[in-house]
């Protein structure tokens, strides 16, 4: 035991980090979950965050995560009792209660649900996840790649309907999505019931810590920006969001040091996540794109083009809710499963196609996915082909 825990104070950072790893789209409108989690943690006390190695390898554990629409979830928020039903279903099925919780993915609203589940169930939370980002389908996980079984899938709906589904992974996803639609728009799921010992190969370790760390970075920079702006007596951030970068107030001290705040933040994010900056500049085009044939993904295909300020390159980003591809001057430079995200230079917050308009200034980042995602199976499950794009991942080019 390291004695690390997630407390009420950690929630804002967790939320900011969850937004970063949500690949620019799925993090939209998850603020409600922050207040909700704060309430739960205030009631239950902190959640213990442990590494898989710290637990007995035989400890039964399961992944917790929500599927469906975050908008629906904001309108019909979870009561907090849902994890109890999940634990009951899975415990009853296997004849042994759960000993630990692991996140399905430590990103977007799903970075918060496992914390709430661990808190409500009084269980430790394993510092790992199965995606390292957001994927649209619940079986697009490293757990799946390692051969863990998704089912039985325990689901609880907004209306407290409870179900235990015994079927194959892809089918479970398909059926559960229909149920989600019928039962209020979202489901909390308990799946990949396994033993901690098997997570060594199957999980992406340190995901929760990484989300928290990135969240703290973003919070720090946001408050630095706010302080500098308060000292300068400038208007609040939202009003300056669309200002051209050179004339933006709040550059104050940092411009005197020769670095714009967004460059400072980018440097820190690159150090923390191993991200690379694909380019940054003005959004010059934003509109609907073509739905790729034969795909079943929820969400709308969108395409946007960022004109890279320094190189003059045109960076096209294809989004399918999540950002899927980045092409620089027509050449594929980044693609799923690597995480693509956009930083709004004005607000120093992560942003996405739904919040952007033509003319906004953004930086496009690419955070490399966990190595297992770059394997042949990994790319098959979460690569461009899985999203209907007949392209080879940049890492496959040499193969």
């Amino acid at each position, binding site marked *: 035991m390291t004695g690390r825990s997630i407390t009420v104070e950690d929630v804002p950072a967790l939320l900011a980090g969850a937004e970063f790893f949500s690949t620019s789209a799925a993090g939209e409108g998850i603020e409600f979950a922050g207040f909700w989690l704060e309430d739960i943690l205030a009631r239950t006390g902190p959640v213990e965050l442990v590494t898989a190695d710290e637990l007995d390898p035989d400890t039964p554990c399961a992944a917790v995560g929500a599927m469906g629409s975050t908008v629906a979830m904001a309108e019909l928020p979870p009561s907090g009792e849902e994890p109890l039903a999940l634990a009951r279903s899975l415990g009853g099925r296997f004849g042994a209660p759960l000993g630990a919780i692991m996140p399905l993915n430590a990103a977007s609203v799903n970075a918060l649900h496992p914390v709430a589940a661990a808190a409500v169930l009084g269980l430790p939370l394993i510092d790992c996840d199965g995606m390292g980002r957001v994927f649209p389908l619940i079986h697009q996980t490293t757990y799946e790649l390692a051969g863990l079984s998704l089912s039985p899938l325990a689901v609880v709906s907004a209306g407290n309907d409870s179900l235990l589904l015994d079927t194959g992974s892809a089918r479970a996803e398909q059926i559960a999505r229909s149920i989600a639609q019928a039962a209020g728009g979202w489901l909390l799921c308990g799946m990949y019931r396994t033993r901690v010992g098997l997570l060594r190969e199957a999980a992406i370790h340190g995901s929760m810590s990484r989300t928290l760390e990135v969240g703290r970075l973003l919070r720090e920079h946001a408050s630095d920006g706010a302080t500098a702006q308060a000292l300068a007596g400038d208007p609040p951030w939202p009003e300056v969001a669309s200002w051209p970068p050179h004339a933006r107030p709040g550059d104050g001290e940092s411009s005197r040091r020769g670095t714009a705040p967004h460059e400072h933040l980018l440097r820190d994010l690159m150090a923390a996540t191993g991200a690379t900056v694909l380019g940054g500049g003005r959004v010059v085009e934003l*509109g609907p*794109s073509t739905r790729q044939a034969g795909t079943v993904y929820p969400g709308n295909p969108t395409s946007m083009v960022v004109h890279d300020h320094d190189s003059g390159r045109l960076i*096209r980003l294809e989004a399918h809710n999540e950002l899927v*591809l980045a*092409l620089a*001057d*027509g050449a594929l430079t980044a693609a799923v499963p690597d995480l693509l995200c956009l930083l709004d230079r004005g607000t120093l917050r992560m942003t996405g196609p739904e919040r952007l308009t033509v003319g906004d200034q953004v930086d496009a980042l690419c955070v490399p996915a966990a190595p297992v995602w770059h394997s042949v199976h990994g790319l098959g499950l979460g690569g461009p082909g899985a999203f209907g*794009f007949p*392209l080879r991942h940049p890492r496959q080019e040499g193969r």
Partner: protein
Amino acid sequence: MKRAGRPSEQLTVDELVRYGPLGHAEMLVGENLARPVSRVALISDLDQVRHCGPGTAVVLSRGLALGAWAVESALRLAWERSAACLVSPAVVGLDQATAQLARRMRLPVFVVTGDTAACALDLAAAIASPEAARARLAARCAELFAERSNARGIVGVINSEVPGVTAALVAPDGHVLAGQASVDRAEHRVQVDVPGPDGRRWAELVAATAGPSSPTWAETVLLILRLARGPLAASVARERLEAVHGAERGRAALRALFAPPDPGPAAQAEPAGRDRGDEGRAVLEEALGWRVDGRHVAVFLRSGTPLDTAATGPGVISAWQEVIDDLPLVPWETGWASWWTGEEIEVEQVASALRRHLARMRSPIPLSAGVGRVAEGPEGLRESLSQAMLAAGVTVRDGPGTVRSFDELGFRVLLASLSQPELVGSARMVLADLLSAPDGPVLVATLAALLDCANSTSQAAARLGVHRNTVLGRLERIRARGVDPDRPDQRLALHLACYALLPEVS
């Protein structure tokens, strides 16, 4: 889809746009069109672009209509392989950013709304035999030339059938006879001379290409222009022939209309005269579409120098028809007659209209005109025409383009009759001394001006446009030749002699 042959035989992207296969596609980016196209590749998988050689026309199949990203990916790969152009199906979101990228890469991009596979086939057929494609275009033009009967139609064929080319038929003086006037200002032009009916250069057929064209394309355009040359010459000959024929018919009809009553037996004189007049009128009204009844103002056009009206006639008549197509122009005696008809027609109105038209007319010979009085019916028309002819006889002295009415000239119209050969001969004899001077004609003109101005040297100087001292000097020389304009008994004769000689000396 492979081609064979020398590189010079390859069609360029530009030509593929002109010849059709790409002519119907939307050109998203038209950069670098001069590149030769060596082959066509129909791509159904982006990876296939990697196997395309330089100069390939990359055609994306419908299956790749996956979004702007797919087109941009193909664009990038095509650029890396030095492809000639990219043809894409219509795709949602294919917009400015894609066009901007293509412009940066200087790679032409076309968007086809229909089936790109069909477009690829057409392209392959064109590329496989460039000569055939060029010949097909030329043959189509030749076929259409044969169907057109006038210059406008023939030039129109080039403008509509040869994409990217605008053509015009331009007269030696720069006047555009048919086609698009903008051709004259175009930077890149191809031209051929067009012979007239006499075999000499009559006009120039000019074609302007949108940009600097490849040598082969320029050759093709030149071939088409040459093909148009024969039909154009034939059409102008036909027009001339029609003009001469029309003029002769007009002259005959007018003569019939103005014919005096038959001087035959008294009993038959009246009806016969009416018959002939009626007959002429019927021809005028029905066959030629002229109006002989109503209020007329006749005009008469003539040149200062005696000319063969039969030779210059067609040119004058076609120039007249270019500016006034609803009024007849009939060769009549020493010039050409016409008339305005209308219930409220006025002489001044006609004179100013005629002045305007004369200025615009591109007549082969300098013309001036006289205008008669307002008159009723065919009889009045004849009288009005006689007046116009008299007035025209005066205006030729005032230089080309002058229009005067009979009333405006007053008694001076009488002077128009002074150019009778006998009078002219006598005048030449009387003024022989003056004419023998080195500047004889100038002295005669100066003497005429002095007499016109009642011997006022300053007025005569103003009229002649010279300094008064010049007039004084000339007067000295006139007197030195034994001519004294101050002698009242000689004055009228002298004045008449001067007027008789004026057409010759001016």
